[in-house]
């Protein structure tokens, strides 16, 4: 029963409450709106101070809320060594919300304590204290007039950068020391490269890329202060021509390298040929006809034999000219001996030139040896050398006329004589008087022959020619070293091989010569008789007998 009563009662009360509440809210809101527009200012904040040249400085603050009313801001400072609180001397020069301290108000190395007070109709607001020393707040202005210049030298161009100090800084009195820094960027890269320039107001950048575009910025600082802002970018373009020149030279170098490489390849491929061309093989020593290995094996006799046989000894010219004497060999048995004293000694002898000759070449047309000794012509003439020659079988008695060859033989002439042997030889008496005279070659050796001690008693020397067809023999035993007819250093066997004896005198002015083979060895190839012996057939005037013995070894 009471519930319906309560319900109606509450309803009326709630509605009334709600109405009052709404009214109150409305009042409050209006009040609030009115109070926002006017309030004391908010607290300002001092941002920073800055001195660009260590002679003046400026401070900036940020104002707080102004409370809807016009608000004024004041800066007050206190300073070390200065009594009292002072206000900012200049609010305008540096812009709004700033305070500028000129030279008279600026002291270095002293502390400043700054505050900003914002005030409006409703109240004040004070910022926090800002303590500063001018020494700490230095930050210069940017450098000025940055100029770039590409300097072109022969080798490589470089970039020269100049600038000036900021206008208001005094760098000359030593009050501030300014230092610079710059940064350079190439157009392609986005990366700056920084360089310190110290106190210089210029800088050179070497090794720049031709055709590149460079961007430069500079900044500075005072003493130990902060760096300034960077200047605006300055650009420069490096001209391109240097690169062309270099690429030209690169092209030239590459082109010339190709034939060089080709030549090297050819050389390497054909290195054997090249080696042969450049370093020809040195011929080893070689003797014709001699087997090197034979020599090496050390059979001396064979080798020396080989060495000697193979020689074709040249005939010596001048030798003969000096030395030749010619004897007239005639067959006459008349003819007075010019010198009788020589008679006994003389033997008939033949003068046989001796030498190393490969052929017998006998020159004369005829030879007759005459004995001019009075006594016993026949005997004398019989003193022809014995013929014990094995060559008799051949017609070696015939001397073929041949041309007189000068220097066929190196030997000497020997006159074979019988050692005082008047024994009749088996010559026939057909010793005819010479019609002609012939000459026998006598070679005289001027130099003394040495030590050859050959005692060939068979030989005698023609001493003199007496008149025509006369020669005088010297029968004394010759040491071979005494005459010019020496055989050089030859031993007995060999010596005898060079000389031939007259075997007999033939009928037609023929002298039969004989090669005496004294050596016992049968190796001597004389027997082979490859040589020819000629016999002078006729004796003609001024003809010479020149017999050249066969070479002893064949």
């Amino acid at each position, binding site marked *: 029963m009471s519930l319906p009563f309560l319900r109606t009662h509450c309803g009326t009360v709630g509605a009334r409450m709600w109405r009052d509440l709404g009214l109150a809210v409305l009042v409050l809101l209006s009040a609030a709106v009115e109070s926002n527009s006017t309030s004391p200012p908010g607290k300002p904040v001092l941002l920073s101070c800055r001195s660009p040249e260590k002679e003046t400085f400026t401070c900036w603050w940020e104002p707080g809320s102004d409370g809807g009313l016009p608000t004024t801001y004041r800066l007050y400072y206190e300073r070390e060594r200065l009594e009292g609180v002072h206000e900012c001397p200049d609010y305008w020069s540096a812009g709004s919300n700033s305070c500028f301290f000129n030279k008279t108000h600026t002291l*270095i*190395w002293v502390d400043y304590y700054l505050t900003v007070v914002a005030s409006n109709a409703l109240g004040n607001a004070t910022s926090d204290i800002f303590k500063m020393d001018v020494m700490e707040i230095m930050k210069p202005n940017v450098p000025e007039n940055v100029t770039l210049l590409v300097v072109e030298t022969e080798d490589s161009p470089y970039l020269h950068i100049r600038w000036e100090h900021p206008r208001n800084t005094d760098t*000359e009195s030593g009050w501030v020391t300014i230092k610079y820094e710059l940064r350079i960027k190439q157009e392609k890269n986005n990366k700056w490269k920084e360089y310190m320039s110290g106190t210089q107001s210029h800088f050179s950048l070497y090794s720049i890329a031709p055709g590149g575009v460079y961007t430069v910025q500079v900044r500075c600082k005072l*003493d130990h202060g902060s760096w300034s802002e960077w200047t605006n970018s300055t650009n420069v373009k490096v001209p391109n021509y240097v690169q062309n020149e270099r690429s030209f030279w690169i092209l030239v170098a590459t082109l010339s390298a190709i034939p060089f490489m080709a030549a090297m390849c050819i050389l390497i491929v054909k290195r054997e040929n090249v080696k042969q061309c450049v370093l020809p093989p040195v011929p080893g020593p070689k003797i014709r006809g001699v087997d090197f290995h034979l020599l090496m094996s050390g059979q001396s006799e064979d080798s020396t034999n080989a060495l000697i046989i193979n020689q074709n000894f040249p005939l010596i010219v001048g030798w003969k000219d000096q030395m030749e004497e010619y004897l007239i060999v005639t067959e006459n048995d008349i003819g007075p001996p010019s010198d009788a004293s020589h008679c006994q000694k003389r033997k008939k002898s033949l003068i046989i030139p001796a030498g190393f000759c490969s052929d017998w070449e006998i020159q004369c047309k005829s030879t007759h040896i005459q004995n001019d000794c009075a006594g016993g012509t026949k005997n004398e003439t019989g003193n022809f050398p014995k013929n014990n020659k094995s060559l008799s079988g051949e017609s070696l008695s015939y001397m073929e006329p041949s041309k007189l060859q000068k220097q066929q033989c190196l030997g000497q002439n020997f006159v074979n004589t019988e050692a005082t042997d008047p024994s009749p030889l088996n010559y026939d008496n057909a010793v005819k008087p010479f019609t002609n005279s012939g000459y026998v070659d006598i070679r005289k050796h001027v130099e003394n022959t040495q030590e050859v001690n050959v005692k060939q008693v068979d030989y005698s020397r023609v001493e003199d020619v007496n008149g025509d067809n006369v020669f005088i023999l010297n029968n004394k035993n010759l040491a071979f070293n005494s005459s010019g007819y020496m055989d050089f250093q030859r031993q007995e066997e060999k010596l005898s091989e060079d000389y031939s004896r007259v075997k007999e005198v033939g009928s037609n002015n023929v002298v039969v010569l004989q090669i005496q083979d004294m050596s016992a060895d049968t190796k001597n190839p004389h027997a082979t008789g490859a040589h020819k012996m000629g016999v002078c057939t006729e004796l003609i005037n001024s003809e010479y007998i020149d017999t050249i013995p066969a070479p002893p070894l064949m």
Partner: protein
Amino acid sequence: SWSLFFLVSVVWVVLVCLLFCSRLLSVGAAPICTNAQAGCHALSLANLFDRVIQHSARMHGISNDLHSEFEQYFLPSKNQIGRVSRNCHTSTIFTPNGKENAQRMARQELTEVILKLLVAWRDPLWHFHQSIAHHHDFNNFSANKALEMSDMVHELRKGVEKVAEKMQMMGIISNSVSSLASPEALLPSDSAEWRLMKDYDLLYCFRRDSNKVQNYLKILKCRIVPEHGC
């Protein structure tokens, strides 16, 4: 023979290097004579100035570094009401605080000011180094810097004295520079004031004073021998 050749060439190279090095060292060790004695390489005034300016720049750099380190460790109370101005013990020495003031000051006076400052910091820096070295919060690097700073102020003072002598010789300043006679007379009367200062304050004061010394030296140089670097 190849090994012999190699050995000979190595010996030769070593000899050449030794010779070269000895020459370099000998050049660097040329003595400095204020009087142009025979065989002595006398430095010019500009050279002397350059040397002391470089020295002072380095000294100031070290003090700057140490101060930054201190700020990291100690976070000195910037929040404090900074009205408590630090009274450096050298604040009694009158130092020009602006460019015009410094340029207006006589050379002799300026030289004296420099010397006074340098003399005043000799003992405090030594004690500062001692206290740093024993403090566990600092590493050896800081302690070394403090020691170097202390040595440098000593050497810089000698350098400036030489410069003053040379200037007197050249007649640039008069001979009556009292600071040269008895440096200790330059000390402020209550020289123990600095003992009351905290390490951080000492460092702060010295950073400021080393900057002053550097600046004054530069001004002197550009006024007297303005050849290079002015």
